[in-house]
């Protein structure tokens, strides 16, 4: 048995811009245990419900995360719509679906680029982010902003996507699909990529279940769970099947996320084809919310919870966001056990961590 020592990883690390710290207990460069700590960027966003009214909170909740901002705003608005018994127009539901899937595409492309950079393929990293730029351009075209959309409101959305813009979206996602087919060959077939990802960072289905893992991280361990089947937003009008893998390793996580980009493209096509002729995108909402509800939705990184307790005034008693990374950190620590120290940076990336989200 070799000598045990503790090596700190993060909160600042070249491969990971997210501020998470791990104390790695290693023995002969093999990780025995990983002890996580967060808390470097806690902003106290949930506490602002005491000072900001529930409509203003929509824009604050969006700022929980710069990558899945749209879905945070949507989850919060849907929770209030449940409490206030508001039925959003079909067009608004499908518009939310389109933006949510564009959000997922850009998030997964961002992650693929970071992964490529992590295993040393800088050119592939640039290619992924070059393709992602096209999706960000679609954000700007349809919502007026590249990251923080601010198009959600309680009762619907603030902007429509007209037919000209729909055509641009369809053309652009077709281009993205073609370019993705080229770069996926490297992710799936390259010898070096496979040697870095296959059989590395195993998280079994049982452990993923026990530790409450979510999203592509859980689906890559064989858990068939995708909350889009809950029919929130416009997903009730869309055909989709969760993408899963039983390989439980880093390669499986890459596979699931890459395939989910194609799935998002398909969902956007379906949603655009089903946009109703009725141009109503929101309904008026009167009064203040009173009651409580928990909403769940499938963000790019996995299941997110939104809990709201309202009291009939413009100020909520409580608003809570449970983000996917919060649920995945323990799975990460389990996965790191018995791996090589040199693989840790890449393995942390494979859960697609978002610590800004997690700490809120």
């Amino acid at each position, binding site marked *: 048995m070799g000598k045990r020592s503790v090596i700190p990883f993060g909160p600042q690390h070249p491969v990971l811009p997210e501020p998470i710290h791990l104390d790695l207990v290693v023995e002969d460069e093999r990780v025995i245990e990983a002890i996580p*700590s*967060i*808390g*470097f960027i*806690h902003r*106290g966003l*949930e*506490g602002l419900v005491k000072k900001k009214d529930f409509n203003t909170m929509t824009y604050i909740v969006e700022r929980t995360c710069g990558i899945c901002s749209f879905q945070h705003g949507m989850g919060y608005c*849907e929770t209030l*719509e*449940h409490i206030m018994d508001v*039925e*959003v127009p*079909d067009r608004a*539901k499908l518009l939310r679906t389109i933006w949510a899937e564009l959000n997922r595409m850009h998030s997964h492309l961002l992650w693929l680029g970071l992964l490529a950079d992590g295993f040393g393929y800088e050119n592939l990293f640039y290619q992924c982010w070059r393709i992602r730029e096209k999706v960000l351009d679609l954000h700007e075209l349809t919502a007026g902003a590249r990251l923080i959309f601010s198009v959600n409101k309680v009762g619907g959305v603030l902007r429509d996507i007209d037919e000209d813009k729909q055509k641009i979206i369809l053309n652009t996602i077709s281009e993205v699909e073609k370019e993705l087919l080229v770069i996926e060959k490297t992710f799936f077939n390259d010898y070096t990529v496979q040697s870095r990802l296959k059989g590395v960072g195993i998280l079994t289905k049982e452990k993923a*279940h*026990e*530790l*409450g893992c979510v999203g592509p991280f859980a689906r890559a361990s064989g*858990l*068939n*769970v995708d*909350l889009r*089947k*809950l*029919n*929130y937003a*416009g997903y*009730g009008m869309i055909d989709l099947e969760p993408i899963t893998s039983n390989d439980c390793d880093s390669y499986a996580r890459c596979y699931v996320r890459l395939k989910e980009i194609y799935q998002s493209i398909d969902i956007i096509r379906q949603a655009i084809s089903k946009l109703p002729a009725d141009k109503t995108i929101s309904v008026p909402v009167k009064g203040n919310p009173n009651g409580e*509800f*928990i*909403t*769940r939705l499938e963000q790019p990184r996995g*299941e997110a*919870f939104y*809990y709201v*307790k309202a*009291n009939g005034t413009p100020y909520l*008693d*409580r608003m*809570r966001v*449970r983000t996917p990374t*919060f*649920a995945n*950190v*323990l799975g990460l620590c389990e996965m790191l056990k018995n791996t090589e120290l040199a693989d840790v940076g890449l393995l942390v990336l494979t859960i697609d961590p978002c610590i800004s989200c997690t*700490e809120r």
Partner: protein
Amino acid sequence: MDEVKELKTNDKMRQLSKLEEIPASDLLERCLELKRAGLRFSQACAAYYEDKFHLTYTFSNYDTLEIISLRVVIDPEEEIHSITEFIPAAIFYENEMKEIFGVKIKLITNDLNNKLYRINVEAPLGVAPQEGGKE
């Protein structure tokens, strides 16, 4: 008998969400029952209103997408038992409740002693400190 309403698109989420109010003394037993039934622990959170802590522990069913939330209402001075001994996934959630709200939770498997978020204010969303301090 309730009037039958037309099913709205987002009603599926409402139908699949259940809330059970239970006394604090039943929390451990009920959590174990749900775990044994194959449900996954999804989240726990606290809220402070009407001078009480309202704690919510949520479990999910992967197959049906149903969630069951256990609601425990306790006085601010009341102490509850941690569930982390048999549900390790609850570690961060219970540490968060303790640090942000000041909920008294005993025997957390990995008690971070209010250092999860490294904030200087004690229980910022919990019981507001009384002017002039404690009597």
